[in-house]
């Protein structure tokens, strides 16, 4: 059992992924591109790894967790204000790109059915790629990020419709082509499409009701135990994903809505931080396996077509978006940064092509063309997204954006980093007392604890989570704090905090609750040790002496 292929494959995937990610770091290539290249080496080139179900499950879980995280990061209010632009731009782009793609493909000499397939495959952009990159840039909740995610969700719905439609087409093609069967198939397809809409409405309603009336109470009961909240939310996520599947919707939509429904909870940030590493692991495997599944044999013969189609996606898609978004009164920079996010095709395109092959509608040659276009567009657009700011400046200098006649400037992003604050970790009796005293002294205090209850009623800014997480320490911006104080009675955490503060040169005050840990804390250059134990003893001694003196 333990010597089976799964762990070996997974090991090789991780190993190759990491080696290439290091290489990518040196060459400034985005990690997800390097993961795909690692996958291509492991799969199509050397044949070391084959896809198997366990790996597929991991990849699938990766996508679910990624979208769950996106949902967590965007609350309903933040997604509502981009609803209109997402809907118009999403649908507009699908129509324009599909039509334009069809014309280009026909001009390139593909048959009608091939052109339809290629055009549809070119239409969808990759939610996973873009969200991963936005996450890397830390800009998911920026205005352009939110618009892009809105657009992707609209596209996702369209994907479902197309898939539903295609499945109907496939089953019709597979059966005897009598008029009666064909008509029946059309009816089922129409009914399925209708059901998808009804399902979407139902799921949305269910999630909204749950987030408002069902979830808050039990979750606030569980809040004191981060592990419980974590396992609960994962179970909730997968429950909604199952429900989505049951309603004939995609897992992505289910996961996103599950995240959205938990985004209203006060500790959604802590949840995010907990899901994040898990997602990173699963999604890396996803990208490598994406490479493993690619197929290039026929791509070289059609190199011209591959390049033209790639250019169409890389330039045509952003162009159409600029056109639509600038018409909707967004400023030029926001429109530009949103537009470059759609310049790639999606992993759906591959699945879509597989379905075409399975239905006997297209051949393997088209699959390899789609793979090649996928690799090129994902790689190039990754750069475009990561470097969208300099790219924007460059396009502006060359006056490439002038024809869109957009409003100049930038839409405002509200985000402020903490500086000069006193961070107090552990809101136990000691922590709370110090917090109150420092607030009286006019200090800006940030309280950190993984129990939301302990942060209540103190009148200080609070952050929920475990300071052992690097991402929490970053969010608390400990590096720019005036001082970090730990009232915790947890040796490991205190030591890691002491180390962190030593590294970034911030004064660190720590609860040295036990004599045995004092040497370690001094080694780490802690600025002040609070020693309740020794203080108590000394105080007792002094009081007793006074009493004796009084007696005399």
């Amino acid at each position, binding site marked *: *059992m333990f010597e089976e292929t799964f*762990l070996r494959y997974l*090991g090789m995937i*991780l190993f190759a992924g*990491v080696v290439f*990610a290091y290489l990518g770091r040196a060459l400034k290539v985005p*990690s997800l591109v390097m993961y795909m290249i690692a996958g291509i080496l492991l799969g199509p080139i050397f044949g070391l790894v084959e896809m198997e179900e366990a790996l597929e499950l991991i990849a699938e*879980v990766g996508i679910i967790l990624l979208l769950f995280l996106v949902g967590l990061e965007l609350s309903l209010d933040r997604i509502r204000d981009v609803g209109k632009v997402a809907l118009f731009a999403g649908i507009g782009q699908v129509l324009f790109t599909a039509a334009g793609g069809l014309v280009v493909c026909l001009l390139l000499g593909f048959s009608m059915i091939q052109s339809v397939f290629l055009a549809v495959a070119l239409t969808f952009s990759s939610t996973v790629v873009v969200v991963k990159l936005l996450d890397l840039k830390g800009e998911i909740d920026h205005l352009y990020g939110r618009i892009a995610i809105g657009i992707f969700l609209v596209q996702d719905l369209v994907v479902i419709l197309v*898939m539903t439609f295609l*499945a109907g087409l496939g089953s019709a093609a597979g059966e005897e082509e009598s008029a009666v069967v064909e008509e029946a198939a059309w009816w089922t397809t129409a009914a*399925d499409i209708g*059901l998808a809409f009804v399902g979407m409405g139902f799921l949305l309603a269910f999630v909204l009701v749950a987030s408002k009336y069902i979830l808050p109470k039990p979750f606030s009961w*569980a809040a004191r135990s981060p592990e419980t909240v*974590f*396992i609960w939310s*994962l*179970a909730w996520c*997968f*429950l909604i994903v*199952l429900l989505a*599947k*049951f309603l004939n919707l*995609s897992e992505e939509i289910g996961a996103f809505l599950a995240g959205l429904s938990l985004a209203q909870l006060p500790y959604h940030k802590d949840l995010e931080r*907990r*899901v*994040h*590493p898990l997602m990173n692991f699963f999604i890396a495997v996803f990208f490598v396996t994406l490479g493993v599944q690619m197929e290039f044999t026929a791509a070289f013969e059609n190199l011209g077509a591959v390049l033209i189609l790639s250019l169409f996606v890389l330039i045509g898609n952003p162009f159409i978006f600029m056109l639509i978004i600038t018409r909707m009164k967004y400023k030029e920079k926001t429109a530009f940064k949103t537009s470059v996010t759609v310049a790639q095709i999606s992993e759906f395109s591959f*699945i879509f092509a597989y379905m075409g092959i399975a239905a006997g509608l297209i051949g393997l040659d088209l699959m390899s063309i789609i793979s090649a276009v996928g690799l090129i567009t994902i790689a190039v657009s990754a750069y475009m997204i990561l470097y969208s700011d300099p790219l924007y400046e460059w396009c502006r200098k060359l006056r490439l954006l002038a024809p869109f006649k957009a409003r100049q400037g930038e839409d405002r992003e509200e985000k402020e980093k903490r500086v000069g604050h006193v961070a107090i970790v552990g809101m136990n*009796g*000691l922590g*709370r007392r*110090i917090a109150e*005293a420092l607030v009286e*002294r006019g200090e800006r205090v940030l309280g950190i604890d993984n129990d939301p209850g302990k942060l209540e009623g103190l009148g200080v800014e609070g952050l929920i989570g475990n300071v*052992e*997480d690097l991402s929490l320490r970053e969010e608390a911006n400990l590096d720019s704090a005036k*001082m970090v104080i730990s009232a915790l*009675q*947890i040796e*490991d955490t205190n*030591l*890691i905090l002491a*180390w962190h503060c030593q590294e970034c040169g911030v004064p660190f005050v720590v609860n040295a609750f*036990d004599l*045995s840990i004092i040497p*370690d804390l001094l080694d780490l250059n802690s600025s*002040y040790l*609070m*020693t*309740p*134990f020794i*203080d*108590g*003893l000394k105080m*007792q*001694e002094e*009081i*007793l*002496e006074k009493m*004796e003196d009084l007696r005399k």
Partner: protein
Amino acid sequence: MIGLALILFAAAMAVTVSKALRFPLIPLYLLAGMLLQPVVGGVVEWLETIVVLAGGSYTAPGEEMAGFDYQTAILELGLAFVVFAVGLELSPRRAGNRKKAVLWVGLVQFAVLAAAGFAVGIYWRETVPVAIFLGLAVAASSTLVVIRHLKMNQKMFTSGGRLVTGVLVLQDLLVIIGLVVLMRVESGVAEVLAGLVGVFAVGLLSWFLARYVMPIVVLRGKLGEELLLLTVLTVLSVFMAAAFWLGLPLVVGAFMAGLSLSSFPVNGVVRGLINSMNDFFVALFFLVLGSLIVVPPVEMWGGGVVLLVLLLVVTPPLVKVVAELKGLSSRASLESGLLLAQTSEFSLIVALYAMLHGKIEAELFSLIALVTIISMSWTPFLAREGVVRTLIHLSPLSRWWARRAGEGRLHEEADGVVLFAGMGEAGDRLARTLMKKGREVLVIEEDGVLLHQLKSQGIPFLRGDPNNSNTLCRGGLTKAVAVVSTSVREEENRALLLAMGKERKPLLVPVFDREAGQRFEVYRHIHPVVITDRTTELFLQWFDDVASESLVEGK
């Protein structure tokens, strides 16, 4: 997907029950897994049918769940993670200043229980290798359950807590080495030696990485969360590959991988990264493991009871004796013994390995698993205050220690004595200081070992329960200057106040958490209580005097 969703759902149930009843989590996961087992096949099929009936049109390739053995994948990944996380925490630092006691208690408990398990196996007429497996399976105690209990009750850094933590780490290491020996024992001594050399080689590599490589990679590499996580996971993969290549159990690789990242502060950084992954995989692993348990035939039940009795009757007294000999108080020793009286998650891993390699039957695996579930479940109940108190009074050894120390002396006639209610963690220190200044002190203590220590330090003591009014009177409460409490526990201080009755002597209570302190303030109306806590004051003084000045200068 449906299978995974069900597993997570069961895990959610388990954590809920665990939180509501303050019950250990691992046995609940295993139980949930057992319950899941008959349900899961049926439910997955049923749900699949519904999904297909409802739509069936959106089915990505490779989506067919039927027949896919997701359990194996979860078991493999989960096992690697659980063992990796244990390796990560392995550090001599855990034992604090109790290293000798840890070594003694850990080794003696391991050896005696392994021998007892082996004897039971032989008595059952199992073959020698099976009996050895049984011995190894019952020899260690559960790191996951005990550490969680210590953390929940804030006892990690008491002397007993330190001892227990160190013992657990040591035993995990012993099980890993034992497993290697066992897997090869049938192939002869040469193979066993080769295996041990392999373990040593991987261990050496891990030590080298921990010392020279990982601090540079993890701390200086500026890798960012994603790359750091993948690097850590790759280290895990590479070590497992090395173990595979050397013909060692994969858990050895996972354990050594953890070890290679266990130096400070690398381990802290890594722990922060994998905390949630660990929660996730621990849940998955134990649930799937639970689903492998079958109900053993009735004739084996007696055997299970024997093993449970063995754990209960042998471990606590054994640990108590050894720990007392190494200088821990009777109370801390007994608490440690009670806390260690269960089988470990490593027992399950050993049993799983043995079963998968055909060394033991599924029934015996299940028996060991059930013993583990039951013995893990009783841990929080055994470690209760009432149980500890009762057992200390019953323990002949505690009484022997106490008798050996003697009654102590009565202080009814002495004037102006400072009474100590118990020796506590540092009562002896304060008492000595006061004595040096010519003050009269008397420590009232009932723990035999501590009495013995007081006696050897020449500190006057009185044997008895400090929270009992008779004892206090015998100690000369009426003429005492003050009473010093050495316990931070609120309930003990309250009992002490009650015992003092109307005798309004000042009571000095050491710092405890503020909420409890506030509740305690009420007693000030009826009694002169001084809560000795000025840590905050001292800190604020420092903050005002030094820190703010230098910070201003710095700016």
